[in-house]
């Protein structure tokens, strides 16, 4: 029997590090130990390399017995991750969110001492802080909404884990730090029977776990109205950079007319202590997230963060291209338009489904001792194994809002397809895709040619001859790249 009398929210674990202060390069970030202890602000190139994850793969594994290859396929689920333009955007939003929130919360300033106090909360809530040397926090926070399986949670966690979770401060430039613990991020997942009170208590439990306090034990009997000030104070004392609440639609309050109460709760978190909050959920949570939180979100200057299922576009191709390498069937098939079409048809652009479908198809091919995956096999597997979600996928395929609305999880009525926004977004996406290609070697042929050419030039061959020779050799032997990994 659990020692806790509330449903547990899972919270993600990260890294615990000692503070190492670096010049943040931006004037408004300097002289703030919370900001100087963070990793440097990353460019897109760095983010791509950090986020990308590839399963172990060796073409020779195709010669292994079937029962071993079945396990090889499992690696895809565990290790495959391809950063896309939406991930880069999300990373930048989070980066700005955390840092912007810390600007006004320097523990070496009066503001920290004021906000760390329990009795200050009353003044803050009443708006009676004009006589005090405290700054007004900039509202910060946004919602990330999308279909289940679109990669919201996994992407978010990967991005957060690029940061340390807890930073320990001892002395900053010879000066004792009033706040020894800085919790950079905290991500909590709401269970199906969650409630706001459960959220509060689990928050305290998580903080206890991260920094060794005992908030939970002392306050387990309190109600949400009593717990909110406590959350605010704990977040202030321990310099929480961002609070991520995932599966927000699971909160009981989100399911009925208490949504306003829930929203007010989060707005208070953002407004009272300037704590950035990211709410993550499926379309089911959207009605609740309209109104106040949307206003809070817009005030923060962050963009709309609704993630839709993929369109059958360049990015979708890019995702499949990366996935397609990992085939452990007897024979590898190349990705062609037919495969692209059938994969999209059967997954409707939901990346999680597409990946699972790819794995399921390989498992069946291996099981049936088929030589390779085929479009027909994909359709057959989808028909057999994705029965439960077929109606939802059919609704997506129809494109009719009334149909889609029947399945709350894929309801997307809030999608605002503003023409100018779309054009700008597409341009940004194209630029980011270019970065991704450069870093991850999208054009294998060209990259190989360049590399072989460099070898020849280094050996003394003139550039013109080297380029031509490299091109000829690569074309002749491109199919053998799977046996020899030139780029390692």
């Amino acid at each position, binding site marked *: 029997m659990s020692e806790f009398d509330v449903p547990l929210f899972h919270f993600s674990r990260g890294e615990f590090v000692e503070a190492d202060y670096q010049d943040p390069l931006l004037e408004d970030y300097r002289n703030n130990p919370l900001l100087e202890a963070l990793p440097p602000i990353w460019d897109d190139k760095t983010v791509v390399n950090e986020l990308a994850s590839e399963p172990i793969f060796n073409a020779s594994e195709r010669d292994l017995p079937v029962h071993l290859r079945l396990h090889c396929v499992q690696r895809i689920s565990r290790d495959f991750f391809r950063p896309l333009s939406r991930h880069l955007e999300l990373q930048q939003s989070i980066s700005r969110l955390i840092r912007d929130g810390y600007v006004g919360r320097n523990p070496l300033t*009066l*503001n*920290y001492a*004021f906000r*760390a106090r329990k009795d200050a909360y009353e003044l803050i809530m009443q708006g009676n802080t004009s006589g*005090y*040397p405290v700054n007004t926090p900039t509202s910060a926070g946004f919602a990330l909404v999308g279909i289940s399986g679109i990669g919201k949670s996994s992407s978010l966690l990967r991005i957060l884990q690029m940061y340390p979770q807890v930073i320990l401060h001892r002395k900053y430039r010879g000066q*004792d730090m*009033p706040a020894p613990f800085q919790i950079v991020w905290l991500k909590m997942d709401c269970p199906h029977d969650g409630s706001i009170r459960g959220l509060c208590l689990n928050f305290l439990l998580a903080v206890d776990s991260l920094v060794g306090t005992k908030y939970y034990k*002392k306050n387990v009997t309190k109600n949400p109205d009593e717990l909110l000030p406590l959350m605010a104070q704990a977040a202030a004392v321990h310099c929480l950079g961002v609070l991520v609440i995932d599966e927000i639609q699971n909160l009981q309050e989100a399911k009925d007319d208490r949504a306003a109460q829930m929203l007010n709760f989060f707005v208070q978190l953002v407004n009272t202590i300037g704590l950035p909050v990211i709410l993550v959920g499926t379309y089911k949570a959207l009605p609740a997230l309209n109104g106040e939180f949307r206003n809070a979100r817009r005030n923060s200057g962050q963009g709309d963060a609704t993630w839709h299922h993929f369109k059958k576009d360049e990015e979708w191709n890019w995702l499949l291209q990366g996935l397609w390498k990992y085939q452990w069937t007897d024979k590898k098939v190349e990705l062609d338009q037919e495969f692209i079409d059938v994969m999209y048809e059967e997954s409707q652009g939901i990346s999680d489904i597409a990946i699972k479908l790819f794995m399921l198809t390989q498992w069946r091919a291996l099981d049936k001792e088929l030589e390779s995956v085929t479009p027909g096999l994909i359709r057959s597997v989808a028909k057999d194994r994705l029965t439960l979600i077929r109606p939802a996928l059919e609704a997506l395929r129809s494109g009719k809002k009334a149909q889609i609305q029947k399945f709350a999880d894929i309801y997307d009525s809030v999608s605002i397809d503003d023409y100018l926004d779309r054009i700008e977004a597409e341009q940004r996406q194209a630029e980011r895709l270019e970065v991704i290609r450069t870093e991850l070697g999208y054009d294998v042929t060209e990259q190989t040619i360049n590399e072989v050419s460099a070898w020849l030039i280094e050996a003394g061959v003139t550039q013109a001859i080297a380029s031509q020779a490299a091109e000829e050799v690569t074309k002749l032997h491109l199919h053998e790249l799977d046996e020899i990994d030139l780029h390692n």
Partner: protein
Amino acid sequence: MNEWCALPIPYPDELLYSVIARYHIRSNNTSPKWTLREVFGTDNVIPTIDLPSHLDALSRRNVVQIMADEWINRHTFYTYYAPFLPDSLAIRVKALMRSTDGSGIHALVGITASTIDQTNRLWFCPSCYEQDIQRYGEPYWHRIHQLPGVYLCPHHRRVLHELTSPLSDRHGLNVLPISRHMFRSIAVIEDLPNKLIDRLSDIAEDIHLLVQQNKLPALYDLRKAILPRLTEKGFVTVLSRIRQQKLCEQPVLFYGRELLDLLDSDPLEVRYSWLEQSTRTARRAVHPLRQLLLIRFLYGSFREFLNRTDVTNAPFGNAPWPCLNKAADHYKNLVVTQCDITRCSDTGQPVGTFVCSCGFSYSRRGPDRSEEEKYYRGRIKSFGPIWSDKLKQCMQEGMSYRSTAERLGVDTNTVIKYANGKSPVREVPLKPKHAKKSGTAPTPKNTRKSPRMRVDWEKRDLELSWNVEQVCKAI
């Protein structure tokens, strides 16, 4: 509860009790027992304002590294009481404060037996309150405002206020709230005349200076330190005894009884006044406040007192020095308070010229290397009237030159010289009686004329009356 605590960084002159109270409000503990357990490792402890214990445990459990000694020296009353205790006792008190058993601290320091009111109460300066919020973001309890004898803020010269509500019992922790609307307080005294305000402000400044000393002054045996000043002010008899009655009266006139009543320090109210204790050989500790009252009466302020004793370069030790006038009744008594130090142009060594109020002055080359050297006489700079009169008397009695010289502690030739009508005021270098053996005595280039001496007329009358009596008997 937590196995550690992250005490807030203490503010300047913040009471440790205040730091713990701020931790209490910062950690949002409902029960003070939780806080005490987190801070001290046990809740079997009363949060003491003045001299807390368990400070080693507190220092160990605190994430921020502040040594126990720093807490004791900067954030408790230790530096208020310790200077007036014997060294061994002060050390023992500090050890108890670090230990987990502080039950004997108050008795050792004398707080238990003291007649000065020591009730637990928390005072603050309204101006400091506003200033701290603007300067640090929050208010806090200042140590200086809690020390006995402090009724006015030494910084703002403003009457202190006492927190009246909300107040917890002695097991609780009282936080100075963030807003004036959250608590009530009253002025600790009202309707003070300006004169009293000035006095109380001065006393607060003395106390403030006392507790800020990095090196604790040794003030247990205060008599030694203040004897020269007592002598100078006429509270010491020729026999080096204290004129206790006069000493009892003068400070009362100086301070006024209203003030002394307020400070629980009226010396006339009890049979054995604290002033007698302060000026006698130390046998028991006197409350710091009373010692400071006496010091201010004698020196004008504690700062002046410190400046007197802070002579780090004292080649001839500190006042008083002995008078070496053999003709005087106070011969070899420690009555000389003035010593002018110059540098020998030949050897570079310090030369001290000691001037007694009887007119006798002598010099000696230093620095002194032992206590006995205090009684070495180099050159005699001037003899003074008492010596001259004694010479005349010996001549009239028909004593021989040799006997007279022995009687007066000089050379026979000196007697011959002065007996033949030489003016005693004229200064002539003489052969030193106890000069140390050296190859060549330095030849003085200039004989510095000693400053005009102020004659102690009372002493002169005494001497003359004796002479008159002798002559009458002869007649």
